[in-house]
């Protein structure tokens, strides 16, 4: 062995090593799915590895035969494999009759010709629908290597014949398959969480999950294209897809994506997927108290395999999106500065903006406390006044009320986009300090509350 290696130059060894590595890489990374049909006569036929029984024979020669799903104890099984989705159903896709049998068991066989005498069939087909593909069967005296993939058995004559393993009798039964472009199957589409609660600002992650199966293999899945949609039911998937009709509006009631994340490895031509959308705080609610109580949120996954065959599915469990009542505020304090006793803020207003950050119309209420100095003296709650436009104290402003009796500041309609100007209200504030008020620093707190506007 050592001398054998010594006989190679270093370049040759490197070349050989590279070839082996590339070979292993190609073997494991690029599995071959468009396999070649191969049939043998054997005692066991492993259906778990995709093999199917086409015919059962009593013996390997001069034999009577039985249909593949027959119940006798024939131990010689004509077992075919090597092609994904192969089936022995006579009603499957591209179904082709291999032989006709005189009975379901203990039968003579004949070729599949237009004028056949027997009615029991032994077939080959593809188990799943697709486009294209073909299964051809031929009977010839020449070897099946001429024009076909494999030999199944051999016949003594074209009809009323006993059967034997191939090459025993002069007439070879041959078959050849061309793999179809299977339609991908999308299943188990679901939305999580369910129900959807928009807990984030400005967005909350919501996932659409699905299983995608393509019998042409995992390369068809990884090389395919997809469209994933999350939308309010009333909008419909077609409007969400095209972006027009049924009141569709991106981010308000329709989200689309063109890529998924694999949540499992691709096993046996099937993969679990998830797609996470950032759903905005204003996405339309569908709970019982919302504007769309009879709607749900749906997920739809459309998948196009590498061969351009398409499959799709919708979520089939209802998913509600909860109403969220929320606001944002632009300042966290009001600072009036120094005001002498007996004076007010005149035309110098303090401002703060309040914004509807939920998906429903909200009433913003305001209330406050007395402003206290460390010595214990105070300014009355009504010393502060507010208005929804700039004012010269007191002007048309409203006196602040105590926390026990908040008043409505403004009603903000439900937002439909992030362009928040229509859902925002700026409030203007002023302060009056009565004559005789001791000089001190006064502090207090105003409360802005958001109340559901049913």
């Amino acid at each position, binding site marked *: 062995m050592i001398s054998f290696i010594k006989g190679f130059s270093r370049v040759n060894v490197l070349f050989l090593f590279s070839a082996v590595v590339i070979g292993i890489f190609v073997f494991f990374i690029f599995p071959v799915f468009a396999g070649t049909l191969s049939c043998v006569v054997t005692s066991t036929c492993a259906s778990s590895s995709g093999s199917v029984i086409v015919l059962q024979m009593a013996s390997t020669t001069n034999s009577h035969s039985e249909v593949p799903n027959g119940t006798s104890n024939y131990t010689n099984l004509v077992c075919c494999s090597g092609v994904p989705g192969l089936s022995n159903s006579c009603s499957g896709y591209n179904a082709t009759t291999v032989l006709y049998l005189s009975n379901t068991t203990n039968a003579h066989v004949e070729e599949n010709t237009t004028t056949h005498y027997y009615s029991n069939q032994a077939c080959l087909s593809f188990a799943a629908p697709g486009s294209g593909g073909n299964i051809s069967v031929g009977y010839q005296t020449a070897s099946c290597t001429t024009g076909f993939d494999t030999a199944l058995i051999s016949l003594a004559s074209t009809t009323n014949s006993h059967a034997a393993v191939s090459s025993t009798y002069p007439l070879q039964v041959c078959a050849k398959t061309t793999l179809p472009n299977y339609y991908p199957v999308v299943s188990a589409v679901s939305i999580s969480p369910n129900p959807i609660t928009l807990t984030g600002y400005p967005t909350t992650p919501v996932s659409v999950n699905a299983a995608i199966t393509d019998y042409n293999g995992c390369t068809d899945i990884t090389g395919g294209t997809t469209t994933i949609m999350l939308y309010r039911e009333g909008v419909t998937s077609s409007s969400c897809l095209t972006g027009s009709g049924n009141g569709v509006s991106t981010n308000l009631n329709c989200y689309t994506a063109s890529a998924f994340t694999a949540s499992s490895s691709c096993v046996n031509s099937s993969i679990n997927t998830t797609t996470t959308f950032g759903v905005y705080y204003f996405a339309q609610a569908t709970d019982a108290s919302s504007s769309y109580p009879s709607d749900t949120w749906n997920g739809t996954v459309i998948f196009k395999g590498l061969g351009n065959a398409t499959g799709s599915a919708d979520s089939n469990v209802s998913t509600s999106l909860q109403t969220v*009542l929320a606001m944002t505020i632009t300042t966290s304090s009001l600072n009036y500065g120094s005001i002498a006793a007996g004076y007010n803020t005149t035309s110098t207003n303090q401002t703060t903006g309040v914004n509807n950050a939920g998906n429903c119309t909200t009433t913003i209420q305001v209330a406050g406390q007395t402003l206290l100095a460390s010595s214990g003296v105070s300014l009355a709650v009504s010393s502060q006044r507010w208005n929804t436009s700039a004012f010269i104290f007191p002007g048309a402003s409203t006196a602040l009320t105590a926390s026990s009796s908040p008043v409505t500041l403004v009603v903000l309609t439900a937002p439909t986009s992030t362009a928040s100007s229509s859902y925002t209200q700026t409030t203007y504030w002023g302060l009056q300090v009565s004559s005789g008020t001791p000089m001190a620093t006064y502090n207090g707190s105003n409360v802005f509350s958001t109340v559901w506007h049913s």
Partner: protein
Amino acid sequence: MKKVIYFFFLGLGIFAMSAAHTNVAQAFGISPPFLNAVHLVPGATYVQTVYILAQDQSLNADLPVQTTLNIPEPARSWISIDKGFNFVIPKGTQQFPIEITVQVPKDASLGIYQGNLSITTAPSATGQVTIALGANIAINLSVGNDIYEKYSVPLITFPDIKEGEDPQVYVKFQNDGNVPESFDSATYELLDQYGGTRLAYTQKNGGFPVTKPFSMNAYTIEFPLDFYLGIGQYWGVVTFYKSGQVVASQKTIFNVLKATFADKAIRFVEIYWVFFAVVVVLLIVVGLYFIRRRKKLNA
């Protein structure tokens, strides 16, 4: 030049979008903003989770929260919060769930009870007049003596199983009605890996877990089949029925994985546990017999 114009407008767009959110000093909200329990009966327990949403760019401390229940007695004493009426949202928490429970006494008077739960945060900033934020949860309770049935199945999945095991279906059952609910029956169809050939079929006519009123229950149902599931991929079709109507169904693919020796041993014991129990009891009886016999002989 085209690229320059493109990036100019792209930058302008990003700036405009971010500008809409840059002025947020505090955000506060709740979801859902109502507690509508309108099909209560005396003795019922209703639990609802409400998320408090808090976001404060300057917040680097815990956020104290005060709640005030504004609903007249007797309903006032029926309502409790798992966190108490005053609690603290830990620093950095943006979504804080609270569970509000309505426990209706068995002798409660039938009627409608309305009010609200006011939630107020402590101001997080300092200044002359600080701004605190709050939200109100509207409460609508209706106690009657009618039977109200409403349920849904928000999730059905098919877990992968080990070879030799029976197929399983994981279900979430949401009962929004005021009486206990469960499925009446279910059918399960096992198909080959291509979904074209039926391998087995079974029907289950009882033994489904019961879901209490106003609650959700999650469980796994096993469908015993007279079919050995070897390693591979299969399609399952499950349909659940109640009162003769289809409540939910699902068709999807699942995997049967290789069972380890431990899996097989556990499975074996699960199937033949009665045999093992009998053997253990017999061994104990025989052991006791010999101990007593030896004692007699010694005596």
